[in-house]
């Protein structure tokens, strides 16, 4: 342990910063229970009515289901693209590896605005795809980058000796993949799927550019933010936020546990 200690200031500051990070979340959840039509302090009466109201709003719930459907598709597609690529990048000598990595990293650093506008121009060549297909294609592009990078770093730490042992015992590539690699990477695959889903589910800018008449939940919330916001938006947001936190936290703890077990073994 280092002797450089600041006593209680460091923990106290950290508590404050965590409060800052979770304040907006707490406020949304709090106002989901506010009985007033225009939310604000002080809250006199608490109600759970807004949850019922928001779940009865077919347009809002429809946009929620659109988002879930499109994000599922994007998550599966991007993981399917990312997994073989990450395996090759991590375990095989690849010519022009840095070029490939640049191609993968590109969408991460490219401003979403620019990608969205470029895709608008691209989809002028295929206007029929505007709407759900274009959103899925765009989100897959964005999430497959993150997915490849995450899987790549996981695979780099993967014990090659397992694969070599299987191959030495006479298993070919496909058997080794099915019997050794897949069971070992399954947890990180699921974690990456979950994170890609969360990312695609919440993305707004690019989806908004390509949506046409399709309405995802972030687009519906954006539209409602242009007017006076009904508390039902907060109620639905609160539900979605709690689910998002649960999904992303469990996915990350899963990854964490996985790498810790590998360190110990």
């Amino acid at each position, binding site marked *: 342990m*280092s*002797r*450089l200690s*600041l006593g209680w200031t460091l*923990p106290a*500051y*950290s508590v404050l*910063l*965590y409060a*800052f*990070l*979770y*304040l*907006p*979340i707490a*406020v*949304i959840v709090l106002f989901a229970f506010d009985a007033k039509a225009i939310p*604000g*302090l*002080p809250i006199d009466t608490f109600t759970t009515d807004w949850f019922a109201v928001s779940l009865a709003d077919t347009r809002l719930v429809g946009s929620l289901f659109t988002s879930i459907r499109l994000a599922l598709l994007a998550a599966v597609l991007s993981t*399917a*693209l990312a997994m*073989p*690529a990450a395996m090759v990048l991590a375990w095989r000598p*690849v010519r022009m590896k840095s070029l490939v990595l640049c191609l993968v990293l*590109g*969408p991460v*650093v490219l*401003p*979403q*605005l620019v*990608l969205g*506008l*470029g*895709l608008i*121009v*691209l989809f002028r060549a295929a206007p029929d795809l505007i709407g759900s297909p274009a959103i899925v294609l*765009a989100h*897959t*592009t964005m999430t497959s980058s993150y997915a490849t990078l995450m899987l790549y770093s996981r695979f780099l730490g993967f014990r090659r000796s397992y694969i070599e042992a299987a191959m030495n015992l006479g298993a*070919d590539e496909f058997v080794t993949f099915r019997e050794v690699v897949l069971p070992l990477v399954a947890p990180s695959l699921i974690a990456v799927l979950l994170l890609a889903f969360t*990312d695609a*589910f*919440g993305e707004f*800018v690019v989806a908004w550019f390509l949506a046409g008449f399709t309405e995802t939940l*972030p687009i519906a*919330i*954006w539209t409602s*933010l242009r007017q006076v*916001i009904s508390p039902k*938006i907060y109620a639905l*947001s609160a539900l*979605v*936020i709690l689910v*998002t*936190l649960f999904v*992303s*936290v469990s996915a*990350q*703890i899963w990854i964490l546990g996985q790498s810790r077990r590998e360190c110990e073994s």
Partner: protein
Amino acid sequence: MSAARDIARRRSRLRAALPAAGLLPLVLWQIVFFVVPVALILGLSVWRSQSYRLIPAFTFDNYIAIFARPAIWRALLLSVETAAFVTVACAVLAYPVAYFIAKKAGRWRGLLLVAVIAPFWISIVMRVAAWRLLLGERGVINQMAIALGLTEAPMSFLLYSPVSTAIGLIYAYLPLYVLPLYAAISNIHDNWIDAAMDLNASPTRTFFEVILPLSAPGLVVGAVFCFVFGLGEFVTPALLGGGKQLMFSQVIQDEFQRRLDWPSGAAMAVVLLVLVFASLALSMKWIRRASGETGL
């Protein structure tokens, strides 16, 4: 015999083809949906538009025209200033927490790290909606301040101003800054710090001469991502900024979608891209130098 050799040969050819087969789908996908759109933007920026129609050309008129507009310069300056401010603020705010998690949190470090990143996964639109509730004239912060007697009239500068954009952006990118800082600080061995203290360096001197230089890689990586994302961010300024002082991203979107002048919008997008890649290229040198010095 020859049949067996045939199978073996086919198998080895298959084995040689596997890496390409694994990489190809992703590479093709990224070319079609990432490289081509960027190339289209680059191409469009040298075209001309006449009464909403695109005319193929090779001209730099769009660039000359946008830089002749003072509003563009104002927006560009505001974006760079805001992104720079947000980057510095994030660095200052994130450093102590990253240090705490890396050095003092013991077995809680994993959980604390996850807890920092978790809000990052919530849809940006919802996070911004929450900040509206907090910052508005009748928002939570103003009403608390009035109740506590800190101010008499609500602070109206909190919402719909560059201040609120900056607050929203700091909130959005703080988790992103903690991650690389945490990685850099946990790479600093405790006995290096102890050695400095043993040699009678004061805690302040130990921090500035040992800990801070050794965490430089994390500081630089975090700063680049913060700055680059802050430059191009659209949702936060659009919903919190109020629309009086536009950021560069808003001007680009406006040019594309409301004024429908794609070539000049594309030229602005290229300017943004150049800024982004210039900051990346500049920091690459720094990241290498920083990691070279620490021997990581």
